[in-house]
């Protein structure tokens, strides 16, 4: 049942935009993700945050509607929405009752193609963002992830898409306008739809709304060198917050699912390595995790643990030793649990129209195709312990970036005390 074959529907528009859709006949809602290659990676030097501010400004009047009318109409249609900017893309997501899908799409068609971009609202956008950044600054965990990103990835991937308290004041109206003109383009974009819809009608509506949109092919992002990889930020926090990054494979790598299984052994569920060793056996923390972070050509893992400052040395040492040990030994039973967890996690996440639309959009954007659920389940099912260990021999969790926030820097192992060369 969960693995029944569902038709994946694809329609290529002349302008390079791809419509990818999957019907879910038993639901009454529909969701879409419009993913455009208008990422923050194109932000001008020193003016990081421009793409993020553009994504706010495009909602302030578009087509025949002013800001108020856009909000009023989307609310009237019951649209739950979110917009996100990452280095490689801007995504506009919406979920609504199935009957409201065409009208919702028409509003979004205006927002991306015919925004008013009112210059007199730039200050409002900037002030909102600055206050949000100030609040983030005081949440040690968000601050840690930003600081880690800054040190772990090469530019422009290093920069937080939101910009920083230093760069946001430097952004001009011109930057926003130019980002929209040059980067909001159908070529390389994907519109993923999941839920209740009629395919013929959807295709026609999308052609009408997006078919005449024209724009250039997206330019590749220039990748630069990385900076210092070890840092401590002194703050009188209750816990010491430890963040650790390691390189691995990108999402579209054929071995991504192998990495996903390794991460599951390390960090999915309460019988995972990190939870067992740091929390269950030693009571060192409440939160500990290892998660995947990926881009088109790069990928890696990011680990987090928050602990009492006095225990930070032990927590960091244990975290590092678990990252090393997983490359040496994995029990067959651990892999079995990982497989079941990945299977149920995938099926459950695809129950919502939103989850499914996001899956379609991400696969298409990163891989140029959408994997079937069966393909993922079968590939995962066939993995062996040797596959995982062999993968980790070729892609060990070494060459760490370590960032900590707290009253005192934890003791670093000798290998880390002198920062690794750029990898």
């Amino acid at each position, binding site marked *: 049942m969960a693995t029944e074959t569902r038709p994946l529907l694809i329609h290529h528009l002349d302008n390079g935009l791809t419509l990818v859709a999957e019907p879910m006949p038993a639901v009454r*809602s529909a969701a879409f993700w419009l993913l455009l290659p208008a990422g923050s990676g194109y932000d001008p030097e020193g003016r990081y945050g421009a793409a993020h501010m553009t994504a706010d400004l495009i909602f302030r009047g578009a087509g025949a509607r002013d800001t108020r009318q856009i909000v009023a109409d989307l609310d009237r249609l019951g649209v739950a929405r979110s917009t996100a900017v990452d280095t490689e893309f801007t995504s506009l997501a919406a979920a609504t009752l199935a009957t409201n899908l065409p009208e919702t799409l028409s509003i979004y068609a205006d927002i991306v193609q015919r925004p008013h971009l009112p210059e007199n609202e730039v200050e409002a956008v900037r*002030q909102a963002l600055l206050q949000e950044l100030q609040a983030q600054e005081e949440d040690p965990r968000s601050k840690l992830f930003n600081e880690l990103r800054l040190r772990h990835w090469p530019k422009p991937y290093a920069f937080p898409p939101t910009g920083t308290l230093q760069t946001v004041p430097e952004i001009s109206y011109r930057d926003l306008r130019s980002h929209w003109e040059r980067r909001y383009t159908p070529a390389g974009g994907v519109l993923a739809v999941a839920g209740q819809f009629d395919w013929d009608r959807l295709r026609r509506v999308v052609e009408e709304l997006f078919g005449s949109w024209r724009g250039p092919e997206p330019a590749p992002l220039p990748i630069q060198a990385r900076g210092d990889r070890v840092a401590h930020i002194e703050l*009188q926090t209750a816990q010491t917050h430890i963040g650790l990054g390691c390189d691995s494979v990108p999402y579209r790598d054929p071995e991504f699912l192998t990495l996903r299984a390794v991460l599951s052994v390390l960090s999915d569920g309460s019988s995972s390595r990190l939870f067992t060793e740091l929390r269950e056996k030693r009571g060192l923390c409440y939160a500990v995790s290892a998660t995947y972070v990926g881009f088109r050509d790069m990928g890696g893992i990011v680990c987090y643990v928050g602990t009492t400052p006095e225990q930070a040395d032990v927590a960091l040492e244990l975290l590092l030793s678990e990252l090393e040990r997983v490359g040496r030994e994995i029990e067959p039973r651990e892999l079995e649990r990982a497989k079941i967890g990945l299977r149920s996690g995938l099926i459950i996440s695809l129950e919502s129209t939103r989850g499914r639309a996001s899956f379609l959009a991400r696969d298409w954007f990163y891989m140029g195709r959408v994997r079937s659920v069966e393909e993922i389940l079968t590939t995962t099912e066939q993995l062996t312990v040797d596959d995982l260990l062999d993968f980790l021999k070729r892609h060990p969790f070494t060459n760490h970036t370590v960032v900590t926030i707290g009253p005192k820097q934890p003791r670093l192992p000798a290998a880390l005390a002198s920062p690794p060369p750029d990898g």
Partner: protein
Amino acid sequence: MSVSFHHTTLDNGLQVVAEVNPHVYSVAVSFVVRTGARDERPEEYGLAHFLEHMAFKGTERRSAEDINREFDEIGAHYNAATSEELTSFYAVVLPEFLARAVDLLADILQPALRPEDFELEKQVILEEIRMYQDQPTWTLYDRAIETYFAGHDLGHSVLGTTATVSSLTVEQMRAYHAERYRAGNIVVFATGNFDWPELLQLLAQHCGHWPGGRPRRKLTGHAPQPLVRVFRDDKVEHAYLVGMSPAPRAGDPQALAASSLAAAIGDSTGSRLFWELIDPGRADSADYERHAFTDTGAYMAYLSCAPERLQENVETLLRVCREVEENGIEEEELDRVRKKFSSQLVRSAERPMGRLHQIASDWLYRGLYQPVDAALEEYDRIALEHVRMLLPHYRLVPAAFIGLGPIDETALQQQLAGYRTATAPAG
């Protein structure tokens, strides 16, 4: 096959409430105990939440390691949560694992409470308390609840404090468990793709022997005093403020009208506070919500902004609340809220866990079950008339303000005093 509702009570008083939906791919099960932080004595603060953690640390049949491993062996998405009034343990699994999920959940509700596990888990809880101390929003929420509900059973943090948690004993926990975790105080909810007779048989097998009875809970109304309190923290340079005033309790016939009113004032898009404070970039957060408990409720306004903007933003918040108190809201605003609530209801009902929350909330606080369509009709029926009838009974201008950050308490007090004199109360 279509969606069907089932309900029964076992001989020992355990209630089972279920909605079967053959069109989904998973099943969600939740054991909800009607117990929480409000059922603790002062020296026990944090006990309900600590007990929730201890449930996962071992039973007569299983070690902590067994529990963790077995949940992962069935690929369960599972967790537990403790609030002021409820402690719930839940799992979402693929249908083939229902029997093992019910076995596990039922077993952990009767934990062994071994002293060595207790001491180790205490360290984890102390880490959890420290983790929240590093997050201003959480810190402020706890301070607000403590201050606003001072003297009431709701007036303390669910986590307890470092001091209370450090001194808790296994004996206290055993006594609390024996008293509160009796079958008559527990409701099992299940939604999604499963077989009702099979679920009943599993529950009879695993829970039929649980001791019956239903402990009492002290319920008292709450009459808050007007107050202004600011908490300082050297690390916090941003301004965070909560404003609270009484609102209809959970299950009150006016609850839906009150939630609609709160959403019109301050939900995340299109509300009055959105246009006044978020759209123009004056604050990074500004919302207005209703929090509801069995015997009382509270409207809660939340503001986060740069400290130099606080005074002006508070003025706006007060003005918006007063305007609504005096003139109510427009049909257009109510319609916006109705449409949002309906869309949200339909979308979250499409997943078993989302549907489970809806069913549990109706059952626990209103003693009823509603199919999705009946709930949608209920939203359609909310009228301006209901909102108007509510207004004279509950003030919207906050009675109490609790702040965190570099906020001048005296200036805020003067601002509010000036405001209160200038505007005579509406009701």
